[in-house]
Each structure stands twice: as C-alpha cells, then as structure tokens.
C-alpha cells in the first residue's frame, strides 16, 4: 500500500480567480463567494477539489434527491489557458448508485466557469418553484423557470434561455429535460445542446432542486507566471494536437470510428450482449453516418479537434409534398452502442430519431439504451408482458418506433414497470427478475466495450463504474495486439495506475482524448506556467489521494467492493479473449482494492 504524509501546498499566482468558490443556496436564494486557496493549493482543481467539496457538503446517508444533496462543479488551472482543457467536473451523490456521482462535460462549460472568475460552484438546498440561475462574473441571479418546467423539448428550453440571457459566445447554458424534472435516476444535464454531464443522474438532482438550468459567463483574465514560456508551450501543445493522428480520427469520423473495429473484433455489445457483434453494423458505423448524414462538425470551447459530429436528418412531412423538417442530431460511439447495437437497430434514420428523442427528454443515452435492452429481453423472456393498455410497449429488437415510445414512458412513468425502469436496470431487475442479464456494474449501466477482462474489471473497480475511469477497453486491445498474457495482478495494477493518473487530468481539467498529449512531463510544464510547481512524484501522490478520497466517499455511502455483482451475461458471451473467467475477474477486483490507499489527508 502506498503511504505518504502530506501533499505539497503550492502558491497560487497573485490574482488568479481560481480560488473563488461560489456558494448558492437555493432554499434561501442567497449566494456568496469564499476564497478556498486551501483546496486548490493541494488538490489542483476539477476532480480533486470537487471530491473535497463533496465530502464537506454532503452529509453521510442523505437522500440523493433531497435538498441536502449538494451539486459541485469544478474547473482547473489549465481551463482557458491551454487547448483541450475544456472540461468541467460535476460531483454529487448519485441517485442511480447511491454513492459517488461524478460526471464530466465539455461544451463551453469549463471556459465559462473559469472566465466567470470561479474555480468551483456549490449548489445547496432546493427551490420551491422552478428556477434557473444566471451567473455572470461571480454574481448569481435567481430567475423564474415556471414556464420552462414541463416544456417537451430540451432544445426549446435552450433556445428560450439563449434569447433571454446575454454574453453569446462566452457562456455555457446547462439545462435539464423532462427526464430530470421527473427525476429519472439517469437523467442527464445537457450543455450547449450536444454535450452532457451524462452519467449517474445529475439531471435528477437538478430536478429534485427545481433547478432547470444554469447560464454562466464572464470575461476574467487569467494571469500566467511567465508569458514567454506560456506562449512557447502553448504552440508546442497546439501543434501536437493538430498533428496527432489519433486526434485526426476523432475529427474525421469522430468517436463512432470504433463501431467497425469493435464489431470485427467481436467486442461490440449487441442485443443486450447476447452477442458481441451486430449483422448490419456497417449501417450505423461512423463511416456510413459521415458519408450520408453528417451535417456539421463542431468543437468544445478551446479545442482544435472538433470531434462533435452532427447528423442532418431530413424527414418529409407525411401529408405535405416537398415539405421537410431537418433536425441536427449529435451522434457519438456511446449512443450508437447503447441505442443502436444493444437494441439491434441497424437503420441509421431510426437510430438518429431515437437518439434525438433521448436528447429531447434529457436522459443519459448509455443508461437509457441498456435499460431498454434489458426490458426487451425481459419482454422476450416473458418476465414482463405488454399490458392491455399498451403501456408496456411490445419491445422488439430493431423496432425503433417502439423504443421511441418507451423513452416517453420512462419519462412519464405511467405504470409500475416504467417507474421501476426509471430507477435504473439494477432496481428493475431486482424487482422483476432477470438480474443475470442486467448489465450494471456497481449500479451503473454498462459502457459499450466487451473487449475482454480488463474492460469489465475497470467497470467494477472504477470510482464512477465508467469505461473512462481506467480505460480497460484500451488495455484489452493493447494486450490483444501484443499477444500478452494478462494476470489478475497485472490487469489490476495497470488499471489502478491509469485511474490514479486520470485524477490529475480530470483536475486540470483536460479532455481524456488529449491524454497522449498531456503526458506527465507536459502537465508538469503546463502547471508551472500557471503557478503549480509540482514534481512528477507530487502529482502521483495527488492522484492517489484523490482516488482514495473518492473511495472514502463511496464506502461512507455504503459501497462494498466485495459485494459487487458480476452480471452472468458477460461471462456467457465470448470476448476477443474467449469466455471470461469469473475467478480471474474476482481476483483482479480484489487486488485492485488491496492496492487502493486510504486517505491520509483527513483533517
């Protein structure tokens, strides 16, 4: 076990507004700023500062949908300073898993929060009537959102706020859809229309507080220590970003470039993972969508890659000749997996319409797709049946119209079945049966990689139960390419080190797509420019510490590593490594948690 005594305390650059934490109390409609140098000096920003604030703000055992659950947003010192540092970290107690809720999003969120002169935003309490907050240069206003509440489409909510609020081009507008209002446990928060704080139910926490949206902007300057060194390093990083082949792929095809390779590898979960490949996958591949539907590529603020791909879906009106509706729909690998291959949908138009419906409602595409996939198998196995009133839609693989209807029912929750499904797959399967094919890990629905043992061990051990925690899917593919022989120890160690290092990246806050650019030595130089003088060893320690703190929160809220359920289905469907061995997974999980340090930095 790693042990250390204390973290280095850095001196912040004079006048850097990052130390400012804006506290907003929705119950009393008050706000104030506190200077929290203590947090940023030790934990950098982003995930590091957010987990400290969550531990401070969230009392043990609170109901995640009660006013006592705080929402924390945090940015880091590299936001607004270096390209691809475009992300914001959100932390809260998850209404889906009951423990750590952490979700990252880009758009303009990171830029706007940092420009607003803030390092973090803490939202406490709950409003009694629907409101939205506008925050400019550190000042908060409470605005009436009664008319926005219940509006069918999240797109419309965005448009209304866009037209009512100033600072176009500099702002972020985060909002929830009806799924958040109705507290579906995997409702998301949408930002800049096509980016999301997707996972673990932040949208439901917004809904529980009657908080419809946040508009944030500002024009604060960020001072750097050495302008010459800054400009040089900026050019170096920028150049490597626009020339990196991996990033060019994100630009050209976007994340859906993974569909075909994973399908060929037999690692693309399909039909609720009854299969690991999909006949007709080509139809919903990144290449096919780019060729036939791509309407526009856009980027998050301060990112030269522009990986966001928007399809232009042109639909004729039924009764009017030569009359069309054109909708721009954002597609990525994850929604294609969850709402496409998992549901056996190979029609690109059907898939795009379903993705659009999920966006309109404001649901996490991944959890929603996995929920629908589980429900389809439950209907298939007659665990549940279509009711006489049709409210349990007769779900059949590939029938996207039925799925579009079911999304509406997840939001509306017209009966016990959809109420259960709105709680997440784990809850629904516990109630109705079918846990053996309920694809959840620590209560969170599965990401789109059945690449081998490391992917699943990563889902189980990751603090967020996300593929992005430790990138097991990538480790699997590396092992396959090198014909390596993984052992539980080697997998556990690699995942642990990766997850610990990612705590630094998500404290800066840089996009994980830039992880090959922001290597430890580059991060060290970049941090120095903004005043954080840390050695590689210092950074390593901080990474371990942040991870330890996250697990401290998880344990405190009842998470038990030895009670983790391994869905039977992942052992039945062969991976590129063949069938997975349960004992191997259990051993690796055990080893991972044995490596996990306990925090030594508690006050």
């Amino acid at each position, binding site marked *: 076990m790693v042990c250390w005594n204390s973290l280095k305390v850095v001196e912040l650059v004079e006048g850097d507004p990052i130390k400012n934490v804006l506290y907003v109390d929705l119950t009393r409609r008050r706000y104030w700023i506190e200077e929290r140098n203590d947090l940023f000096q030790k934990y950098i920003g982003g995930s590091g500062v957010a987990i400290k604030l969550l531990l401070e703000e969230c009392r043990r055992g609170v109901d995640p949908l009660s006013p006592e659950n705080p929402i924390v947003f945090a940015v880091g010192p590299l936001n607004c300073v270096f390209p691809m540092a475009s992300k914001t970290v959100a932390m809260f107690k998850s209404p889906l898993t009951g423990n750590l809720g952490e979700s990252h999003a880009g758009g303009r969120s990171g830029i706007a929060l940092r420009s607003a002169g803030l390092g973090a935003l803490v939202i406490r309490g709950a409003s009694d009537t629907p409101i939205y907050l506008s925050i400019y240069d550190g000042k908060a206003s409470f605005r009436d959102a009664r008319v926005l509440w219940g509006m069918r489409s999240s797109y419309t909510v965005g448009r209304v706020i866009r037209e009512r609020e100033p600072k*176009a081009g500099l702002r972020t507008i985060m909002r929830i859809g009806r799924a958040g209002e109705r507290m579906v446990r995997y409702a998301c928060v949408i930002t800049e229309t096509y980016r999301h704080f997707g996972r673990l139910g932040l949208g439901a926490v917004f809904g529980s507080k009657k908080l419809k949206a946040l508009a944030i902007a500002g*024009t*604060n*300057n960020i001072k750097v220590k050495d*302008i010459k060194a800054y400009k040089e390093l900026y050019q170096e990083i920028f150049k490597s970003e626009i020339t990196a082949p991996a990033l060019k792929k994100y630009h050209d095809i976007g994340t859906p470039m993974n569909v075909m390779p994973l399908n060929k590898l037999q690692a693309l979960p399909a039909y609720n993972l009854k299969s690991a490949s999909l006949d007709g996958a080509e139809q919903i591949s990144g290449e096919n969508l780019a060729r036939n539907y791509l309407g526009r590529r856009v980027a998050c603020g301060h990112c030269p890659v522009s990986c966001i791909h928007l399809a232009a879906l042109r639909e004729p009106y039924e009764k009017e000749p030569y009359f069309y509706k054109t909708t721009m729909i954002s597609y990525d690998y994850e929604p294609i997996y969850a709402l496409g291959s998992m549901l056996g949908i190979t029609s690109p138009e059907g898939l795009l319409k379903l993705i659009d419906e999920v966006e309109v409602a404001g649901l996490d595409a991944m959890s929603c797709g996995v929920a629908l996939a589980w429900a389809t198998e439950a209907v298939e196995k007659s665990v549940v049946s279509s009711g006489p009133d049709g409210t349990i839609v007769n779900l059949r693989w590939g029938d996207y119209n039925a799925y579009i209807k079911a999304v509406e029912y997840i939001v509306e929750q017209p009966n016990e079945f959809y109420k259960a499904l709105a709680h997440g797959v784990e809850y629904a399967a516990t109630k109705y049966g079918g846990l053996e094919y309920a694809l959840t890990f620590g209560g969170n629905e599965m990401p789109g990689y059945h690449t081998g043992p490391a992917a699943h061990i990563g889902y189980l051990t990751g603090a967020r139960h996300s593929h992005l925690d430790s990138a097991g899917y990538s480790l699997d593919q590396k092992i396959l390419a090198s014909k390596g022989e993984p052992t539980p120890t080697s997998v556990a160690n690699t995942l642990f080190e990766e997850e610990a290092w990612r705590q630094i990246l998500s404290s800066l806050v840089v996009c994980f797509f830039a992880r090959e650019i922001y290597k430890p030595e580059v991060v060290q130089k970049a941090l120095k420019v903004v005043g954080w003088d840390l050695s590689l060893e210092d950074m390593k320690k901080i990474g371990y510490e942040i991870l330890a703190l996250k697990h401290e929160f998880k344990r405190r809220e009842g998470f038990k590593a030895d009670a983790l359920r391994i869905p039977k289905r992942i052992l039945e469907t062969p991976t590129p490594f063949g069938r997975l061995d349960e004992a191997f997974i259990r051993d690796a999980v055990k080893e991972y948690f044995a490596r996990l340090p306990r925090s030594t930095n508690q006050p």
Partner: protein
Amino acid sequence: MFACSRRFGSAGLGKTAILIRSAGGIERGFVVQVCRACEDPPCAAVCPTDALKLRSGGGVLLEAARCIGCRLCVDACTVDAVLWDDESDKPMICVHCGLCVQACPYGVLELSKGG
C-alpha cells in the same frame, strides 16, 4: 479568441477583439464578429474624445489615454465588432495582426484587403 487574448499577455477571453458565437444554437453553426477595417468607420465618427484614430489600411487605433469608456463605439459598430475589456473599461480594438488566422486550424479566417 484565445490567440487574440494571448497577444496581450493574458490567458482567458478577457482581452479578445474577435468573438465567435453560435448563430442561434450550435445546430445552426457559428458567426464571427470581427472588425472589417472600414475605411470610413462609424466607431471613430461617434467617439466624443477622438480616441479612435483612423488606421492606414482601414480600421482604427485606440489612443487609450483619451478614451473615457462611454461605449458609443460599441453601439455604433454595424457588425458588433467592437468588444469590451472590462478590466480597463475600454474597447478592444482589432489591430489586424492576423494571429487569429494563424491559430485557426480549419482556414475559416483570412486576413485580406477588400471584400
């Protein structure tokens, strides 16, 4: 925008003289608000203290010592290309240095005469 701010030795967006915003939602694409280097610029015409001087080749130069921060130039600009620096409480005036053009990896911006 970031490249423009960097020119002034600053990170962030506080010192930018070019603004990119969505054309009413990201689904509709983007609009660039930037100085067109007018030969007969309305911003200079309305300046009550003569702080905006005509620049050879078009556009204006700000004589900061004369500026009283009245913002008339902001309202006068037909294409909303006079942005504001809250720190100095004076306009951010584009000097047509072309740093933004160099920073754009997709060739959206161009520094040219005419058009």
